[in-house]
């Protein structure tokens, strides 16, 4: 019985993230537009785009390979799985133990790996630009992320997200320097990973500055739709990650009744809204940086993460 | 009698060393050859004396070999060579005669020191003899390395060998002395023949250098 409930919840979670993701993206766009004194597209615009793209036929470059066509599904699958393992409104998901935080990061890593390959497949110079910059960013963002995981895992004594959330929600944590550092680093990484300003601009098509958009330049139709969906999933994932780790309150424990679940859901949506708002605010208040300033930005993140870990290692010894 | 034997042997051996020094002192080939003849003569005498003292007749053979071979034949032969090669001029020494003498002194002192470490129990005659023989050997070597001229190097080698014979005869009742001295004479004969054969080899050095220059392909 309990298993069935868990299963249902898990399924619900998967659907939830899938459905909420474009909304979040739309919300961020809307807020940005408003902050820029613009009307901005309606909230549901992303859904419309997706549907439109789905309907269009795919225009494929002549020399695109089978891999090019498989990749959108691959990265979508990887990201979706990752997103569905992050506790959004309820901890102790059925399959949460099948992949801990490291594995989730690795899943995102594989998504990026294949996306970068897609950028190289058609053999255009812009795809190359995108991929090479993407992997450069990743090569710094991933270690930083791992360092953050170390910090959290050492505090919570587990790499399991549910366990982490549970531990951090409990009062045993108290305020910690390393937690603050980790949060800061995590935000920086999240910005980089989601190709937001100041690292990259999702709205730009100015060739020499784009990274993510350059990689997917050759995609169209349903493929492009999947990739966009994946992007918004990723954004959602990171926001909910930050939410469930640093503001774990309101998460429903396993075996909670429907009401608790409902309130938890509400809390989650609220968190998303706040997160999206802050992101938009940040993006509007800062200018995009040159590509080759990015390493310094991420290097800083890496250093912060390492510092946080070191602090923990040392403090454990005391 | 004991004292006398000792003194005579001592005298002869000592004078052998002295003559080695004189050889070291010479700067003309002829003179060097003559000096070597004297060297060999004294050796013959000392060997004969040893033969008499130890009443070991076979040593007389050695003495005669020394007399005939080294006092007469070899020097004459070498004279011939010198004339043939027309090198009866000054000997180029590597180090000056003076310093050569000094080195010689050092060597003699060294051999004395080394020898006197031998336990006193060993019979003094043998011991002294050995000390002198060692010095003669070393002086011979010194002569070989301080002279550039083939002939004088042969002379050095022969006086070295004289030292050996002295030691051998000094060693009381040592067998095979004759055979050994014969073997050595053959060796020396070879050397002299060698000098005859490769008369170009007035000096070892020049030959080596030229040879090294072209044939080995070593840089």
């Amino acid at each position, binding site marked *: 019985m309990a298993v069935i409930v868990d299963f249902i919840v898990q399924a619900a979670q998967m659907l939830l993230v899938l459905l909420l993701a474009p909304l979040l993206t739309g919300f961020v766009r809307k807020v940005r537009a408003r902050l820029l004194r613009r009307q901005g597209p309606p909230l549901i615009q992303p859904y419309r785009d997706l549907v439109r793209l789905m309907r269009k036929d795919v225009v494929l470059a002549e020399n695109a390979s089978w891999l090019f066509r498989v990749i959108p599904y691959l990265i979508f699958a990887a990201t979706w799985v990752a997103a569905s393992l992050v506790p959004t409104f309820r901890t102790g998901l059925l399959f949460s133990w099948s992949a801990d935080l490291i594995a989730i990061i690795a899943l995102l890593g594989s998504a990026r790996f294949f996306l970068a390959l897609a950028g190289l497949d058609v053999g255009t110079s812009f795809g190359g630009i995108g991929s090479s910059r993407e992997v450069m960013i990743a090569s710094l963002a991933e270690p930083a992320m791992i360092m953050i995981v170390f910090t959290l895992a050492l505090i919570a004594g587990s790499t399991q997200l549910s366990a982490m959330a549970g531990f951090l929600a409990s009062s045993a944590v108290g305020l910690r320097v390393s937690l603050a550092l980790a949060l800061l680093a995590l935000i920086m990484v999240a910005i980089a990973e989601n190709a937001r300003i100041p690292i990259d601009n999702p709205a730009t098509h100015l060739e020499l500055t784009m990274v993510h958009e350059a990689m997917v330049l050759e995609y169209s139709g349903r493929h492009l739709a999947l990739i966009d969906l994946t992007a918004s999933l990723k954004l959602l994932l990171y926001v909910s990650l930050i939410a469930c780790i640093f503001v774990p309150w309101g998460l429903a424990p396993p075996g909670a009744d429907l009401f608790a679940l409902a309130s938890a859901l509400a809390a989650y949506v609220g968190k998303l809204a706040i997160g999206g708002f802050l992101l938009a605010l940040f993006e509007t208040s800062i200018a995009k940086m040159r590509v080759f300033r990015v390493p310094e930005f991420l290097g800083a993140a890496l250093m912060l993460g390492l510092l946080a870990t070191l602090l923990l290692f040392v403090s454990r010894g005391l | 009698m004991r004292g006398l034997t000792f003194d005579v042997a001592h005298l002869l051996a000592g004078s052998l060393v002295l003559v080695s020094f004189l050889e070291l002192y010479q700067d003309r080939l002829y003179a060097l050859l003559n000096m070597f003849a004297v060297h060999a003569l004294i050796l013959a005498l000392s060997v004969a004396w040893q033969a008499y003292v130890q009443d070991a007749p076979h040593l007389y053979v050695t003495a005669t070999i020394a007399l005939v071979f080294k006092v007469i034949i070899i020097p004459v032969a070498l004279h011939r060579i010198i004339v043939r090669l027309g090198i009866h001029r000054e000997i180029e020494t590597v180090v000056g005669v003076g310093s050569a003498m000094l080195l010689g002194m050092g060597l003699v002192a060294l051999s004395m020191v*080394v020898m006197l470490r031998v336990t006193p129990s060993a*019979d003094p005659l043998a011991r002294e003899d*050995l000390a002198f023989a060692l010095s003669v050997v070393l002086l011979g070597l010194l002569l070989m390395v301080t002279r550039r001229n083939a002939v004088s190097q042969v002379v050095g080698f022969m006086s070295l060998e004289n030292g050996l014979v002295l030691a051998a005869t000094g060693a009381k009742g040592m067998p095979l002395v004759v055979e050994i001295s014969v073997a050595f004479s053959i060796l020396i004969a070879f050397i002299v023949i060698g000098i005859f054969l490769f008369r170009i080899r007035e000096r070892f050095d020049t030959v*080596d250098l030229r*040879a090294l220059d072209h044939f080995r392909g070593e840089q």
Partner: protein
Amino acid sequence: MNLPFDAVTAVLVIPALAAAVLAALPGYRVTATLNVIAALLTFVAAVSLFFGRPQPGRYLLVDDLNNVFIVLTTFVGFTTSVFSASYIGHELETGRLTPTFLRFYHAMYQVLMFAMNLALIANNTGVMWVAIELATLTTVLMVGIYRTHEALEAAWKYFILGSVGIALALFGTILVYMAARPVVGEGLDAMTWTVLVTRADAFDPALLDLAFVFLLLGYGTKVGLAPLHAWLPDAHSEGPTPISAVLSGLLLNVALYALLRFKMLLALNPAALAPGPLMVTMGLVSLVFAAFMLYRRRDIKRMFAYSSIEHVGIITFAFGMGGALANFAGLLHMTMHSLTKSAIFFAVGHIAQVKGTQRIADMGGLTETNPVLGWGLVLGVVAIAGLPPLGIFMSEFLVVTSTFARAPWLAIILVFGVLIGVAALFLRLNTIAFGEPRGATAKAKASYAPMFAHLALVFAAGIYLPPVLVDWFQNVARLLG
């Protein structure tokens, strides 16, 4: 026990007779075959010594120590004679040797065998000395046999340095006699090994020390220890290759054998200074020096001559270290080195004949042009570099491991020298054996049997040592203390 014929005398008489006969006979084929037969007979006689030994006489002696040496000497002598048969044939065709000289060559070859066997069998320091001098003279003549400017040059150098060495060795011998005389009394006994060994503890230590210094330098010149090595490379590179093989493979061993005999005396005398440090020092000096000298060699035979110095250095080092393991290793290394190095010279001889030069720069890609020779050489170098599964690896393994625990720094120097040497050898091997073929690419009319026989033995020894051999080696190791 009594044999049908006295093997000891046979080992001496056969070469002597053969020498006389060969000196008389004209005609290259006959003499060559006779040479081989004589060598074979000698070898057989030597092997028979393993099964029955006469009691040591006044002048002759066969014990575990020299028995191994004798068999090794006669065996390499035999294989070398086989090799020289084909080698010399080629020399005749190219006219580098005239029949007269050839007759002389074969006679001298047997004389050399005789001299070396005598030196090994002699039970008397004086006889041994005479024999070694005889061996030196013969090799001098054979080194100079090509009568080229360089050959005479090398022979002359060898001759002069050798004579001085001989003289020093004699002085040492005399000193030993004088040390022995007060104890064992005058006369022949004081020069007889069997007697000396029994009484060595009572000798005057100071005299023994002095004697050993002279013997080390005297016979060390023959062994080719630096800095007394000067004659060795030239003699190897200028003489006929069979002689190079014999020089490296045998004469060095004989001289070393003499040294070992005297070392035993000192080892037996508690008051005498230990010969070990001297030998260790000279061994290491030779090793490192030769290893560096290998780099700038352009003449292939001279290069391998230097490698001989290197290995003699290792052997001397091992014996200097002493102890059952190190001595065993030393003996093994000596045997393996003789076999390997002569095999290498067999290969090198034919290679030089094919290429018509000894300049390494003029040979290349041998494994392609003459696969058998080329791979033979590669195998030989691999063996001499001390790589498994060949015999030298085992001896080096034993030397290094047994040393390192006792004297770490010495072992490190040793390892350093070995590494430098290996690097140099393979540097040259690369150009000789691999890469684009260079130089003349004629097919070799060669007799590969001796080379591969040796290499096969070395290979077998590296994997499996027959217990009999091991027992002998261990006895000898114990004798050496």
